[in-house]
């Protein structure tokens, strides 16, 4: 790691994790100078019990808060405008997003609209400049998290926003909310985080702070994801996975290497599958290419994923290959635990021909489209075409 060229790293949010962490919310909001929050969530996506747990966490704080629980998977800027209107009329002063994926994207854009005092949220576009810090924003991820909740990205109906000010001020991870309904959801979130962190960690431009986050998150996933997938009642494992997923948002906000992330996003937007499913498929071909480019970048992964002993006893030359084997074993463990519920190739995912055509069309427009195409081909994307 060459530090002479300098580096920048940003992680503006505080993380509050653990048993009854949610109950700290009133104190933390007071610390952000907020006393009347608006909760943005979805009864269908986040679940009624999660909303109940959050309401209960306000305890005897004496706070008044609003709950908007009608965000849907197809939410667009009209919903953002509707919530912006509620926020202004109700004189709320902060936003709490409960859930993952589209819920947090909507909340980020509402925060942007109310903080920048735009007259109509439907006017917001990719060209909207986000130069100043936004209002107090809290994210409480549930098992439906995708990992992008804590990132600097927000995307809704094809309109994308990128700014560090979109990142939350506070992230609360409570084991009562991180247990998933099924193992597949945990595996998808875990793979999405694993892939994004891994590609940032093997990038030539990584910096030591990002590596510290990546190391911790990858260890959490290596040690806990299989357990969280098979035993969903295991609070310790599901909380460790949730922490890793939250950290992945920070890592992805500090890297330029986003091959797997972009592949996952294209499929998410067009085919409406979880990006983790695609990232899990593309992980091995991507790393295979990396090892051909520069073996040394993968050496340290053995220490992260295999542990101290394996790293010490393996000669320098064998470390990249051993790291790849660790990743293969890790992936195999998860796919085996899911017993066929998660397809390992695009062909087995049953994606329709016309959707695959749309995916390839978008991928071809990317600057490195030809390379992305080779990854898709290697995970069975071409066989659908044939």
């Amino acid at each position, binding site marked *: 790691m060459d530090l002479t060229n300098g580096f920048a790293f940003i992680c503006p949010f505080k993380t*509050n994790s653990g*048993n009854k962490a949610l109950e700290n919310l009133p104190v933390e909001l007071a610390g952000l100078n907020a006393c009347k929050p608006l909760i943005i969530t979805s009864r269908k996506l986040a679940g009624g019990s999660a909303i109940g747990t959050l*309401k209960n966490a*306000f*305890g*005897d704080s*004496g706070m*008044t808060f609003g709950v908007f629980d009608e965000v849907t998977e197809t939410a667009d800027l009209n919903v953002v405008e509707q919530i912006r209107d*509620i926020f202004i009329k109700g004189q709320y002063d902060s936003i709490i997003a409960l859930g993952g994926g589209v819920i947090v994207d909507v909340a980020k854009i509402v925060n942007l609209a109310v903080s920048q005092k735009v007259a109509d949220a439907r006017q917001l576009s990719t060209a909207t400049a986000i130069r100043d810090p936004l209002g107090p924003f809290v994210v409480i991820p549930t098992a439906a998290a995708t990992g992008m909740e804590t990132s600097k990205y927000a995307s809704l109906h094809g309109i994308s926003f990128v700014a560090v000010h979109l990142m939350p001020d506070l992230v609360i991870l409570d084991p009562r909310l991180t247990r998933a309904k099924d193992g597949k959801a945990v595996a998808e979130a875990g793979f999405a985080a694993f892939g994004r962190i891994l590609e940032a960690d093997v990038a030539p431009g990584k910096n030591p702070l990002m590596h510290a986050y990546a190391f911790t998150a990858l260890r959490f996933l290596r040690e806990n994801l299989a357990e969280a997938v098979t035993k969903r009642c295991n609070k310790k494992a599901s909380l460790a996975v949730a922490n890793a997923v939250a950290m992945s948002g920070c890592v992805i906000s500090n890297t330029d290497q986003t091959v797997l992330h972009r592949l996952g996003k294209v499929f998410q937007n067009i085919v409406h599958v979880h990006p983790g499913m695609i990232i899990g498929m593309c992980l091995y071909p991507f790393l295979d290419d990396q090892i051909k480019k520069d073996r040394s970048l993968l050496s340290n992964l053995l220490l992260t994923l295999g542990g101290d002993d394996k790293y010490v006893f393996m000669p320098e030359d064998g470390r990249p290959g051993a790291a790849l084997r660790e990743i293969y074993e890790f992936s195999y463990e998860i796919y085996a635990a899911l017993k066929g519920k998660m397809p390992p190739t695009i062909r087995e995912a049953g994606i329709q021909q016309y959707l695959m055509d749309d995916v390839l069309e978008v991928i071809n427009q990317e600057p490195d489209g030809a390379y992305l195409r080779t990854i898709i081909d290697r995970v069975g994307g071409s066989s659908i075409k044939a």
Partner: protein
Amino acid sequence: MQEIHAGGKPLKKAYVAIFLWFTGRAIQAAAKVDKEVKKEFDTLPDEFTFALGSLPNGPWMVVGKEKGKVKYFGGNLKCRPIHLRLVIKNIEAAFLILSFQESTALATTRNRLMTDGEVPYALSVIRILDIVEVYLLPKLIASLAVKRYPSWWPFGHKLAGRIGVYTRTLLGI
């Protein structure tokens, strides 16, 4: 869309209030019965007052020194100038700590406590609270509440202290 006013947790609040009331009186009693507690209070400045309680609306326990004697001042934070506040962030955390599901040390590492004042004074108060808990609670429960249970105390010392602390606490002397 709905607007909600946060409800209360009356049962947990009542438990915490009773516990703090009893502990406050027990500290006053222990300062007269136990030499270690007396020694800890002697190291604190004259008129020193500390409060232990939960955010946002209490309950609180205010204990301090008045004319060289240790006194429990009730639950009103405005009764005297407070030099040290040991604050539990919410009533749920207060219940966890005061129902011995978590020790003070564990609760501190889990970010449930805040100290507003001098840290050396806070450590003295924590040591006093630990001794008082050992007197008030059976060994099984006290072991959960304190970091290290003083198994080196002679049985007679513990028994005599316990009788003294309980009698004075109940009588309020």
